């Protein structure tokens, strides 16, 4: 079965003051229908750039390399003409952003924004569009939807705004929802509500979810599969359970160890030494090797490709090929 979304060799660069920043480097991933993929990484890893590329929302200065492919429902997003792209955005593939206040238009009521989205893709009149909008708002758990239709974004709380954004993204029934750090700006109790909402919606609407996050806990709670990014590259992919039970890549292991947790004993967590290098100067060989506790001579010389680490598992690490690496 062909995947719903397939990204191949996506490479994005930006001009920078002191060179060229390689933000995403030959990123490849795939999502099947009904699947939830979490892309996890810290700042500068390239996850947001990847997400924005999917709907061609990158800033004008970004350069997407010609060999990149983004195949969605059979067509290459990167080569669609403007009208075809418009028909995809919102109706087939939609996106929810981190900061709901800046992604909702502050001078239009919620109802207007939702109705406009419907009208842009389907031949309905305003009244029918507003009815759909009210239904959608109820679906995302907003009390008194008719009232919310008339309200403006600033009149809603953070959690309610995010729900309104989700409603707007889903109103035309897209097959794929991309959520870029949808809960990072929210309080933790509201975060839990929104994550629960996303999980139940994907079930009810049978859609796929691509969740971008830096929080491993969030990924663990909702993802079927996880892809970890570092240095503009995917460094590990695995089914959710397997990744958390036994991470193959030292960076993933380091992240899991460094994350403060509520379960288990209250020990201070070991940090990953060093810092992420700038995107204009990734280290030679494996990009993580300067900070890796298991690195050996080969790691600094040759960058590993994504190696098969089991059924539906891959890790960009020489330890997969040579588990006793450096210790022999």
């Amino acid at each position: 079965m062909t995947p719903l979304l397939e990204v191949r060799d996506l490479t994005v660069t930006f001009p920078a003051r002191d060179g060229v920043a390689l933000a995403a480097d030959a990123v490849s991933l795939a999502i099947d229908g009904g699947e939830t993929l979490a892309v996890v990484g810290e700042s500068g890893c390239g996850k947001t750039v990847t997400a924005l590329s999917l709907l061609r929302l990158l800033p004008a200065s970004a350069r997407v390399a010609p060999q990149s492919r983004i195949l969605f429902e059979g067509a290459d997003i990167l080569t669609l003409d403007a009208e075809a792209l418009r028909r995809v955005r919102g109706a087939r593939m939609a996106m929810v952003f981190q900061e709901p206040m800046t992604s909702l238009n502050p001078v239009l009521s919620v109802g207007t924004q939702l109705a406009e989205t419907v009208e842009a893709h389907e031949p309905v009149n305003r009244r029918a569009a507003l009815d759909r909008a009210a239904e959608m708002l109820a679906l995302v758990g907003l009390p008194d939807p008719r009232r919310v239709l008339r309200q403006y974004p600033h009149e809603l709380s953070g959690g309610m705004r995010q729900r309104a954004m989700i409603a707007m993204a889903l109103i035309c029934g897209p097959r794929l929802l991309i959520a870029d750090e949808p809960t990072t700006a929210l309080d933790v109790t509201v975060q839990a509500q929104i994550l629960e909402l996303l999980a139940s919606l994907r079930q009810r609407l049978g859609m796929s979810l691509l969740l971008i996050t830096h929080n491993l806990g969030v990924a663990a709670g909702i993802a079927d599969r996880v892809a970890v990014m570092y240095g503009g590259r995917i460094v590990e992919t695995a089914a959710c359970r397997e990744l958390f039970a036994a991470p193959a890549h030292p960076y993933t292991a380091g992240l899991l160890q460094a994350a403060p947790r509520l379960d288990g004993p209250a020990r201070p967590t070991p940090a990953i030494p060093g810092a992420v290098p700038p995107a204009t100067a990734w280290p030679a060989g494996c990009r993580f090797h300067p900070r890796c506790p298991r690195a050996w001579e080969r790691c600094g010389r040759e960058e590993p490709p994504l190696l098969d680490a089991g059924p539906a598992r891959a890790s960009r690490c020489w330890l997969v090929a040579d588990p006793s690496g450096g210790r022999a």
Partner: protein
Amino acid sequence: MSQPLLAIEGLVKRYPVDRGPLRKPAALLAVDGVSLSVTRGETLALVGESGSGKTTVARCLMRLAEPDAGRVAFDGVDVLALKGTALRAFRRRMQMVFQDPYGSLNPRMRVGSAVREPLEIHGLARGAEADERTVALFREVGLDPGYRKAFPHQLSGGQRQRVGIARALAVEPEFLVLDEPVSALDVSVQAQVLALLRELQERRGLTYLFIAHDLAVVRQMANRVAVMYLGKIVEEGPAERLFAGALHPYTWSLLSAVPVPDPDAQRKRIVLEGDPPSPVEPPPGCPFHPRCPHPAKDDRCRTEAPALREVAGSGVAACHYAAVVGR
């Protein structure tokens, strides 16, 4: 038992809220009668979500905002009554590290000068001696002294936060108020900065008031935890006990809401209904009652605001039906 280093009693801070030209401004009760104490050498965590008032408490302590009522005593000194030179002298004993490592540094000032500035302000060192002390501070927080000439935008988030810490340490304070010091940092960097803070506490004998919304981070740092909701403290107690079993239903929900990096974690998640209420119009009775998941919630909760009461040697909680709920 020794006198606490910091004692806050009945702190109240109101902000007027404009309700348009035709209505009288309402009063937003950001801090509504908060009392806390911190003993020398310990870390008290103050936890809450947005609108809880925890940042306002910090600002009142540091005299960035003037409270409307209450007492704050630091080592016996009435902090709120200090003025002029006495206030400035007091600043040497209690300092603050801010949340936003970028916003808390002057973008046009080299970071070395930023760390040096407190030495100049308080006349602690000049010229070459000030230089030496700046270098020592940089080393102490794990920064290469070569970075002294850099501007904030040339440093990473973690490095900037270290600069903020070095700056706060320059005056050799006894007490640090840490306002969400790692919230804006990546996970791997968070762990580094937390380790640094623990190390500094041990080496310098510091006392911390650690303000945060992330309970998992708090668990690593705190000896005692106080939870705030809508301007009031709703629970307080030793950290270990609180994480093992909280007394107040809000604390239960906070703990339960924190995502854990383990897909198999079979936790019964308590997901609260509705949004945090507006502090401008708090509900009558117990401020938490509209969202409270406690099975014993009843009419009394709707009408009578619970007082902060001692609960069976486990700490204090403001709930009519406080009970330890194991995780």
